[in-house]
């Protein structure tokens, strides 16, 4: 049996399962409601020429809106990933799946793709805000494209970390808490490092935490380093999760 078919089967099942989940629609709704509020607020401040606003709508409206959307994603991803493996572990389905001819990577890849697609569905609708802005003023489209890519790439990275903790824990709550701790450290680690006034720590944090990379992408700087950061994050998360799944077969206790 081909890996692709296994991957397709698991992805299709998991997407269907996600779309049956009321929580998914709640999160979609909350995401758009907050996104609209943030956008309107930025737009009002911009149109009134408020203090500190630039004359550029992209910098004043689009970039801050996407920065907030990234933060909302950070909050939402663990809520979507916490159940993915934890539920299968607690109801015994993971044991059953692991006795099947399907490979661990197909199961993991399918679950990852399904969750990522679930988030991508509403992430790719976010350009509606710059489109509306573009009707009124000039928008820098490469920045918009960079921002959408930033949301998609960061989603992929965060989903892989969420899956890792979901696979590591039988409790969904524990999986969510561990994901939040890790993602918040990645997101706000640089702020803490800067506050410590230790230059080496600050430099390291700039490379290893999310802030500089996400801000780079959102401001339209689709540099290989920024893209690679999230690709590597997703790969490392998936790799460790695959090892965790494999280790279940070799556990001695």
């Amino acid at each position: 049996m081909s890996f692709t078919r296994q991957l397709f089967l698991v992805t299709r099942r998991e997407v269907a399962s996600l779309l049956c989940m009321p929580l998914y629609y709640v999160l979609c709704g909350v995401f758009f409601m907050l996104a609209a509020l943030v956008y309107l607020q930025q737009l009002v401040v911009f149109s009134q020429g408020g203090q500190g606003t630039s004359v550029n709508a992209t910098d004043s409206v689009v970039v801050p809106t996407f920065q907030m959307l990234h933060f909302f994603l950070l909050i939402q991803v663990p809520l979507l990933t916490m159940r993915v493996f934890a539920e299968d572990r607690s109801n015994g389905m993971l044991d059953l799946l692991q006795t099947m001819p399907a490979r661990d990577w197909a199961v993991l890849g399918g679950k990852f793709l399904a969750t990522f697609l679930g988030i991508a569905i509403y992430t790719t609708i976010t350009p509606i805000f710059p489109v509306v802005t573009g009707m009124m003023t000039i928008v820098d489209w490469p920045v918009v494209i960079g921002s959408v890519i930033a949301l998609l790439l960061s989603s992929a990275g965060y989903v892989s970390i969420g899956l890792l903790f979901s696979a590591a824990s039988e409790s969904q709550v524990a999986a969510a808490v561990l994901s939040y701790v890790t993602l918040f450290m990645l997101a706000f680690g640089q702020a803490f490092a800067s506050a410590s006034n230790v230059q080496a720590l600050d430099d390291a944090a700039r490379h290893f935490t999310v802030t500089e990379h996400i801000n780079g992408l959102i401001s339209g700087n689709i540099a290989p380093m920024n893209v690679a950061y999230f690709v590597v994050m997703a790969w490392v998360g998936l790799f460790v999760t695959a090892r965790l799944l494999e280790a279940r077969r070799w556990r001695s206790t």
Partner: protein
Amino acid sequence: MIEVDGLTKHYGPTRSIEDVSFRAEKGEILGFLGPNGAGKSTTMKLLAGLMRPTAGSARIDGIEMQHATPAQRQRLGYLPEGAPVYGDMTLDGFLRYMAGLKGLDNRQAKSEAERTTALLNLQKERTRLIGNLSKGTRQRAAFAQALLGKPPVLLLDEPTVGLDPSQINDVRRLVRSLAGETTVLFSTHILPEVELTCTRIVIIANGKVAAQGTPEQLVATIPSEGLARLRGSSNIVNRLAAELPGGSRIKVTWSEGEALLTWAPREGEDLRPEIARRAVPAGIDVVEVTLKRARLEDVFLRAIGKEGSA
């Protein structure tokens, strides 16, 4: 074929199973009987390749499932304890999904889903969400999953839990019908289950194999017991017991005015007619005189160390 050899599994300091050995030949239905917590599910998981044994080996068709290739895993059907299913899928969708993961193409998956639902009388439930089905139906859905692709080896961990008597009968009949073609390891803590379904039995207690063999072989390990209940004067009854052939082996106990005589008969010996012949002329009422043959339940209780509690 299933081969378990010196299988041992410790969870940290806790010993789950110790030096468990047995085998099931091709086409044999082997009952795996033991009280709750005896180590049945652990043995099943080790056989399915879900855990690493502390010592020993568990092989299916000569292969340890932990090292099995996807093609080799296709030879195993597994119904884990708790009968896991996806509640958010329809029964048909679930079976076709699992058939797909077992390596069947779309056409085969469809026909296998139809075949297994028919085998378990689930045709009416095919389009219903599994989460809305009764516990018994979910259990049968999980069983149907294990049968997908006609695997030559089946591990069934408590397959009748949650079923009503009619469904239990159906499942037993189905398992019996697999004999000859499929090697089945049938785990249960319910005695009649193995008596009615299995050709051979392994009894596990406290993580160790306590007994194994055919039901007849196991029953033969416990001698029959002669039993007579008599009413009359204690002097006369005691004298009668002492004067019977082999009287020294007869134990007399009194309860509520009745004497209970028990003895272990020797080969070809039957004291029952002699007791009746001597008791009546002596003015003793014979309430009951019988030869109690051992049952599988006695074997089980002795194996798990609760002899005499039946």
